């Protein structure tokens, strides 16, 4: 089975902090994704990566950046956290389709 592991289930940070969310997959997938999930809005794509050191903006990239230095690891970075970034963050990976998801990180920005 594919395993996508997100480093934290719950995280609490303060406004203005730089925040790192980590995601690791064990299936040698080329594609990796970061989504945020908010009630009534479903999942919205923040960034994705289709190869090491490659990245593409998703639908809501503002306020975020990503890093993919190794194939198995995809990091989401909040450069200066704000309260409107309080959300559930989900990482996914795939070879083509379908995507396989981690359990999510619930991030609170105070």
């Amino acid at each position, binding site marked *: 089975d594919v395993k*996508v592991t997100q480093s934290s289930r719950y995280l609490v940070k303060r406004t203005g902090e730089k925040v790192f969310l980590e995601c690791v997959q064990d299936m040698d997938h*080329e*594609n990796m*994704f970061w*989504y945020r999930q908010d009630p*009534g*809005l*479903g*999942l*919205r*794509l923040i960034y*994705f990566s*289709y190869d090491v050191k490659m990245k*593409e903006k*998703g639908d809501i990239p503002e306020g975020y950046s990503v890093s993919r230095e190794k194939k198995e690891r995809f990091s989401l970075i909040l450069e200066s956290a704000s309260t409107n970034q309080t959300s559930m963050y*989900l990482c*996914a990976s*795939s070879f*083509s*389709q*379908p*995507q*396989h*998801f*981690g*359990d*999510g990180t619930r991030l609170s920005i105070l």
Partner: protein
Amino acid sequence: AQSVTQPDIHITVSEGASLELRCNYSYGATPYLFWYVQSPGQGLQLLLKYFSGDTLVQGIKGFEAEFKRSQSSFNLRKPSVHWSDAAEYFCAVGIMFSGGYNKLIFGAGTRLAVHP
């Protein structure tokens, strides 16, 4: 633009009753379609997928979905719901790019409650 609509935000059914969750999509090409389920505090689990071929697809946990091109729909069904099916269900359409990579467009989700 591509989009996915799940018209029902909340649905409540009795245990043992049948279930249908609606999904409509907007996409110019032949779509890849998915249903995912999310239990509380968990990530998303794939229930079933449609890529091509038979328009009635079977998934895990006794779920099935039917692709109807003329209606741009991909509704999820289950003949007899169990209490453990209470969760949030997401429909998604897969967009393939010429470079070989892909992305998913999700609906807003339908939260299912099951009465004993």
